[in-house]
């Protein structure tokens, strides 16, 4: 029996979903036109008036929003409610520039947390579960989102936040955590540490929700094995609400988008043209009923495919099929597109762990790629020739996956910093 949080929405017939979306969208556009000067200006600049919007089918007339749009108006970009009605902010990490501040009314917090509760329920969580949240708490949406979702579901919530692995494991064993929420790289690290300490028999986890980073199928299998769980992907971004914009169900063939709140489109990233269902392109979201920060046609830079293929879980929400990587994460090296997730897949295949760093540089006008990976006991041998051989095999496997040469550097175990938030996988030293 599939576990839902709000089956009345999650399994709603498609026609009803479309009706609901249209109704919410028309109301949202009135709100934005009247209360969100930033977007109204944007519409006027594109020569679009509220009168041109007769139904959700007219959405393609509306201008896109980019991360730069949200940064430019810092700190009040896209704010559409008086601050007296706002109860919370969250913020992006700002690692690639100015931070984006997202505002929430109580209504916005509720709908976000309900989305997270749906994701937890899809991973099998109920009020009988102990939900261990090891995402960072604070401005980052990971911790607060899953914390709220777990509350809504009535599960016992452990607000562990990130870091202090010994304390994490202590609570996990003493309180019998059953559902883990964190980044996939931290889940892998917890798995490693549990194996090192030989305490796997004391771990009661059955499921995990891992997001905020791209991860490969190989990494999923490794985490599932190390923690003895089923690992679910969860997707979201602060600009739209936070984690729970979409989530995986038991079928694990893509993530169901919470379509009653977020309208998804796929566009050609070069032309901005809307692409039909089934085609790969850039994911664009419109918030259908968020009040304080009602982002319209936001370009996520995530590349994926949308599909309405019937799902065995009974949910009718459209699915986004896992991007090969964020277009943000994609590196162009010697003119070739390289995704860190491809490198990760090769490393895991070759018996290394997902602890690696990619260093890109430019020497004499030519790009260089170096992959640093930690030596493992399994791959180490007293025979220098064999170690050299393994290194050569890894170089060859990377070359065949990426199409370009990557220098491999084997480093000492634990010398690559473990992430407690987002893993820093790529260091790009090119000054372009």
């Amino acid at each position, binding site marked *: 029996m599939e576990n839902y949080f709000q089956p009345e929405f999650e399994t709603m017939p498609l026609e009803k979903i479309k009706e609901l979306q249209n109704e919410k969208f028309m109301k949202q556009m009135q709100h934005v036109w009247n209360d969100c000067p930033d977007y109204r200006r944007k519409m006027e600049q594109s020569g679009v008036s509220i009168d041109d919007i007769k139904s959700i089918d007219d959405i393609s007339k509306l201008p896109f929003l980019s991360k730069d749009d949200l940064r430019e108006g810092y700190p009040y970009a896209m704010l559409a409610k008086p601050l007296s009605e706002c109860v919370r902010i969250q913020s992006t990490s700002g690692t690639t520039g100015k931070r984006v501040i997202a505002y929430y009314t109580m209504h916005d917090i509720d709908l976000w947390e309900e989305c997270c509760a749906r994701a937890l329920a899809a991973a099998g969580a109920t009020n009988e579960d102990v939900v261990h949240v090891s995402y960072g708490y604070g401005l980052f949406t990971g911790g607060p989102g899953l914390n709220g979702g777990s509350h809504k579901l009535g599960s016992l919530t452990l607000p562990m936040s990130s870091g202090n692995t010994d304390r994490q494991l202590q609570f996990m064993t003493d309180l019998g955590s059953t559902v883990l929420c964190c980044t996939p790289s931290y889940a892998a690290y917890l798995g490693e540490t549990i194996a090192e300490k030989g305490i796997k028999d004391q771990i009661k986890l059955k499921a995990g929700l891992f997001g905020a980073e791209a991860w490969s199928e190989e990494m999923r299998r490794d985490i599932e094995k190390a923690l003895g769980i089923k690992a679910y992907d969860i997707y979201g971004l602060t600009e739209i609400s936070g984690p729970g914009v979409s989530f995986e169900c038991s079928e694990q063939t893509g993530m169901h988008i919470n379509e009653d709140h977020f309208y998804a489109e796929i566009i050609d990233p070069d032309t901005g043209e809307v692409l039909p269902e089934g085609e790969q392109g850039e994911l664009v979201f419109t918030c259908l009923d968020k009040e304080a920060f009602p982002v319209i046609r936001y370009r996520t830079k995530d590349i994926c495919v949308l599909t309405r293929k019937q799902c065995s879980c009974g949910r009718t929400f459209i699915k986004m099929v896992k991007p090969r990587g964020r277009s943000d994460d994609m590196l162009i090296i010697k003119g070739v597109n390289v995704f860190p997730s491809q490198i990760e897949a090769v490393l895991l295949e070759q018996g290394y762990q997902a602890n690696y760093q990619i260093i890109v540089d430019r020497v004499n006008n030519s790009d260089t790629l170096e992959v640093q990976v930690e*030596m493992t006991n399994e791959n180490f041998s*007293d025979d*220098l020739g064999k*170690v050299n051989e393994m290194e050569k095999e890894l170089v060859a496997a990377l070359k065949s996956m990426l199409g370009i040469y990557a220098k491999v*550097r*084997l480093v*000492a175990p*634990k010398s690559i910093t473990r992430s407690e938030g987002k893993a820093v996988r790529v260091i790009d030293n090119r000054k372009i």
Partner: protein
Amino acid sequence: MTVKQISVFLENRSGQLKEITDLLAKKSVNLKAISIAESNDYGIIRLIADDVDFAKDALIDEGFVISVNPVQQISVPNVAGGLNSLLSKIAEAGINIKYMYSIVAGKDEDAQMIFKVDEPEKLEELNL
């Protein structure tokens, strides 16, 4: 005589070797011999310690990547040509030496050499 040798993965950067000797000193492990094989970016340090299991556990606890392998310890007469006559016997038996290094010996004692060979059983049979 077969003895156990500990090999440790080492990054080729300053201070790495000292991290190991620091640890072993702290744990009061007496090193009888040490040798390093190096490649471009990394190396393998090979150790003969007085208490192998203790040294091995100490290294694993600190997170080093190691492997323990049998090697042959052979005594070499402390006279001119001592090593040469030993190597002649090994060569005559058709045994290939992968690497060798020496154990610190006292003033008038015979030297002790560590051998890694491709056919250790054959070397044992020579009764050197």
